[in-house]
């Protein structure tokens, strides 16, 4: 058999090999048209076609392919025909290579894009992380206030929540018969101690400890005997500030409160002081600020007045300075205070401040 084959004309053998390739290659022919897209071919099928194509290449271009055998039989071609024969073999080989490579390229790019398709992910699915928690709005605001005052050179202080009458009332110049002392307004323990009704108590401790000059704020819990309703709680958070130094005046008080309110509610916020009465300050002032919502033209939040009342302030009463051991001929000081809860209520337009202590997750989730 091999003998008879070898007897055949090498040129005819080359043409036969070429024909045989063309026949086998037919099924891949559709991959050679560069302009036509490959349709209806799944990734799996395309990969098996790629494999088949690789086998085809081995069969027709490998060392044992018909064409390779033909090359070796060049000796049997008459010397004058060898050049033509060589060219023929090269041409046919080039045709086969080109056809296979075209198909390979096309298949490869089809497989690549099919693989991308299959492995593509939905980037809009949620990222993997625990549901994040939320800090309490009072904490968030308290931290902000503390940061503002630290930047203004104040120390943050805190002290006891259960206090003696001395710190809660006497040292603050609250007269013996003042209604705030009554058990109607202030909580007392069975041992006769008071739950602090303002964080001014901390000012006395701080002045006793630090002496003058002193600059501090005391944020913290305070207690007053109010029945819970949409605008009252028996416990709330307050910030009290104190600045005692030589030459402190009400202008410094006004400047400090105005600075705070601008940082909280925007640079155009206007602060207004009104005379008022507090036992621990003289002169005393309440402070209002221009409504952050309407800017002063009147709205629901400011009850159409354009102003929002926030807190009380004044020049520290000499009796208070004396109780804290500060020489009031040398030093003067201002103090101010306001409710953190009230500010939270204003900023977020709470219609019922009891929500602050119910810890309803649906409420807490709204703050960040």
């Amino acid at each position, binding site marked *: 058999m091999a003998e008879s084959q070898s007897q055949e004309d090498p040129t005819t053998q080359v043409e036969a090999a070429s024909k045989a390739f063309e026949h086998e290659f037919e099924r891949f022919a559709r991959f050679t048209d560069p302009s036509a897209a490959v349709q209806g071919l799944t990734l799996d099928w395309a990969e098996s076609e790629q494999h088949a194509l690789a086998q085809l290449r081995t069969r027709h271009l490998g060392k044992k392919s018909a064409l390779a055998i033909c090359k070796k039989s060049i000796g049997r071609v008459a010397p004058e025909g060898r050049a033509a024969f060589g060219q023929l073999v090269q041409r046919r080989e080039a045709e086969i290579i080109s056809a296979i490579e075209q198909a390979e390229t096309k298949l490869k790019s089809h497989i690549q894009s099919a693989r991308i398709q299959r492995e593509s992910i939905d980037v809009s699915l*949620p*990222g*993997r*992380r*625990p*549901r994040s*928690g*939320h800090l*309490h709005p009072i904490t968030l605001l308290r931290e902000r206030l503390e940061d503002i*005052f*630290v930047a*203004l*050179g104040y*120390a*943050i202080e805190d002290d*006891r*929540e*259960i206090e*003696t009458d001395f710190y809660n009332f006497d040292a603050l110049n609250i007269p013996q018969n003042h*209604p705030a002392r009554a*058990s109607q307004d202030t*909580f*007392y*323990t069975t*041992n*006769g*101690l008071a*739950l602090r009704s303002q964080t001014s108590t901390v000012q006395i401790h701080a002045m006793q400890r630090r002496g003058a000059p002193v*600059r501090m704020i005391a944020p913290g*819990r305070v*207690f007053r005997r*109010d029945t*819970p309703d949409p605008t009252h709680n*028996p*416990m709330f958070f307050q910030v009290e500030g104190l600045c005692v*130094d030589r030459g402190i*005046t*009400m*202008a410094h008080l*006004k*400047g400090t409160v105005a600075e705070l309110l601008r940082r909280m509610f925007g640079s155009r916020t206007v602060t*207004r*002081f*009104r*005379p*008022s*009465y507090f036992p621990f300050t*003289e*002169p*005393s002032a*309440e402070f209002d600020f221009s409504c952050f919502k309407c800017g002063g033209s009147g709205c629901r939040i400011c009850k159409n007045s354009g102003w929002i009342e926030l807190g009380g302030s004044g*020049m520290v009463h*000499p009796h208070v300075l004396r109780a804290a051991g500060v020489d009031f001929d040398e030093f003067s000081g201002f103090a101010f205070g306001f409710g953190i809860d009230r500010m939270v209520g204003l900023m977020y337009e709470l219609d019922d401040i009891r929500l*602050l*202590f*119910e*810890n*309803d*997750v*649906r409420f807490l989730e709204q703050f960040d």
Partner: protein
Amino acid sequence: MLISYNWLRELTGTILSPLELRERLTMVGLAIDAVEEKESDAVLDVEIPSNRPDCLSHVGIAREVAVVVSGKLRPPSGKPARSEGRSTDLTSVEIRDPDLCPRYAARLVRGVRISPSPAWLAKRLEEIGQRPINNVADITNYVLHELGQPLHAFDLAKLGGQRIVVRRATAGEKLKTLDGVERTLGANMLVIADAERPVALAGIMGGEDSEISIQTTEVLIESAYFNPDSVRQTARKLGMDTEASRRFERGADCENVLRAQNRCVELICEIAGGVATEDAIDVYPSPLPARSISFRPCRVDSLTSLRVAETEMKRILTGLGIAHTEESSAVWKCVPPSWRIDIEREEDLVEEIARHFGYDKIGSELPPSNQSGEHQPKELKIRKLRRTLQALGLDEAINFSFIELAPDNQLELIPEFHAQDPEHAFVTLKNPIIEHQGRMRPTLIPGLLNSLRHNLNHGIRSVRLFETGRIFAESDSGELPKEREALALIATGGALEANRAQAPRETDFYDLKGSLEAAVAAMNRASLRFTKAHVKHLREGQSARILLADGTPLGSLGTLGERISDAYKLRQLVYVAELDLSRLLDVEELPVQYKPLPRYPSVVRDLTILVDRQITLGELLHTIEGRQVDDCRGAQLVGTYEGANIPEDRRAITLRIEYRSDERTLLNEEIEDRHRGLIDSLLRQYSAQLH
């Protein structure tokens, strides 16, 4: 207090509109909540500061208006048209307790005709929210609102012995007051009595028996000054609050007594007819002294930064009735009027000048800074703790500091609060406002359980909360109660993931433990230790004591016990932890220090052993550490397995042991040798088998 605009205008002649008055009075410290326009008048609702009882009348407000507009007050007259007879011939006044009644004046009007008030008077009272009764009663009320002095009219015919005795009540004495309530009096209550019995509660309300009626023809007008504390205490004890008591409590004007009485008598003669006696019986044994205050005008500038001209200061002082003489150019002697009981010292005078000169003229500047600010030393650590817990999915709760008494003995408290005598261990409120909530919380857990309950009630079954806050306990030595900061965590339901409707699994003990560990690590404290322990409120076998590295107990962690779960009607597993945050923050921070990177490779060996279920990972790790095997760098958990193919009382634990030398690369035989030794000792010590 309600103030009629027309009335105010009669007293001051002001041309300011009601809205202008509102603005101007607000800026001198009399805030006006509302202005109600009436048919031919306007009514101002003025908020009177508690130290200004002198403003509880139209004349009081008019005085302020007069200073505001630099005008003059036009005080009402007070001279009856006709008078005859001496009061002493007709009645008598005896003050038995002058400590509670420094002054009492009585004057009579005879021949009056009781009838409804004329229209103008009734209308004026109605405008300011007062109900007209009859002409004489209305006139006393009118004068009260005009001059601020409470007055009372008795029917002289109904006074036993036609006399007035001011005395303390005897305990148990009875008096039916004008509101029809029969009141039993205490021994310290001051009454106005006749010869036999009490006829009025001094400074609070008259008695029904001596009330003016249609038959009354002779009236006795009482004008007096009562001790503020006495009136306050009596009114509070009896639960009464009247126009009169409100003024006496805060301090009436002792020098206004006769003027108001004159005005009242004048109006009665004019409106109800009758003839007044020529004079009053005025018992005023020791007149109250006037105060004199040294005032340095320069203090206005040094306290307020306002530069006020001396003439302007004097105008304001004079307008407010404050007498002033210059002792020197630097010091003035000021005498406040009898009605200004609030002015006691120099600073008070500074305020008077500043508020009338205008707070709006005070400048605004930051004080020169000479100090650096600082947070509370522990605040920044607590912030890290909060942020970490937040990131791990816990919401921050804040609960009231008071809780119910009931759960006390069901909860184990932090070690600092373990008391010998639980009866006296807690701080209790004398006057709680929310029923039963009379305990200052010794633990944060009840508050968090209530918060949990609240959320479950609203259909939210997956909840993770934490709270930091003060807890309280009595101290043993009779000192002030202990106050400490605590941290508590609570979790129940699914381990929620962000933006997913369903939690992939349920929360468990290790979620809560992990959150706690992460929070402590964020504060850069040495890691906590957890040992199995019996804890009162936790489920047996699922409860741990939390310890510092040195073994100091800090608190507890575990699955909430069934009894307390039932008490809070919790029908799903709840995990809860609480620890003494104050104590934890006292622990020194871990130093952060560089260690050279390893120069030689490390080799790890995994090891799976089958041990009794009661043997803990902690024990195994502790043993491995204690063995001090050469070049052993530590062991970590790979996993545990129990279930199929393993006896019920045992479990498999896989550990990864690391070996490394700082001097050289370890040889395989050396590692095998060391590892073998370690395994053998574990197997022996725990009767374990290799798995």
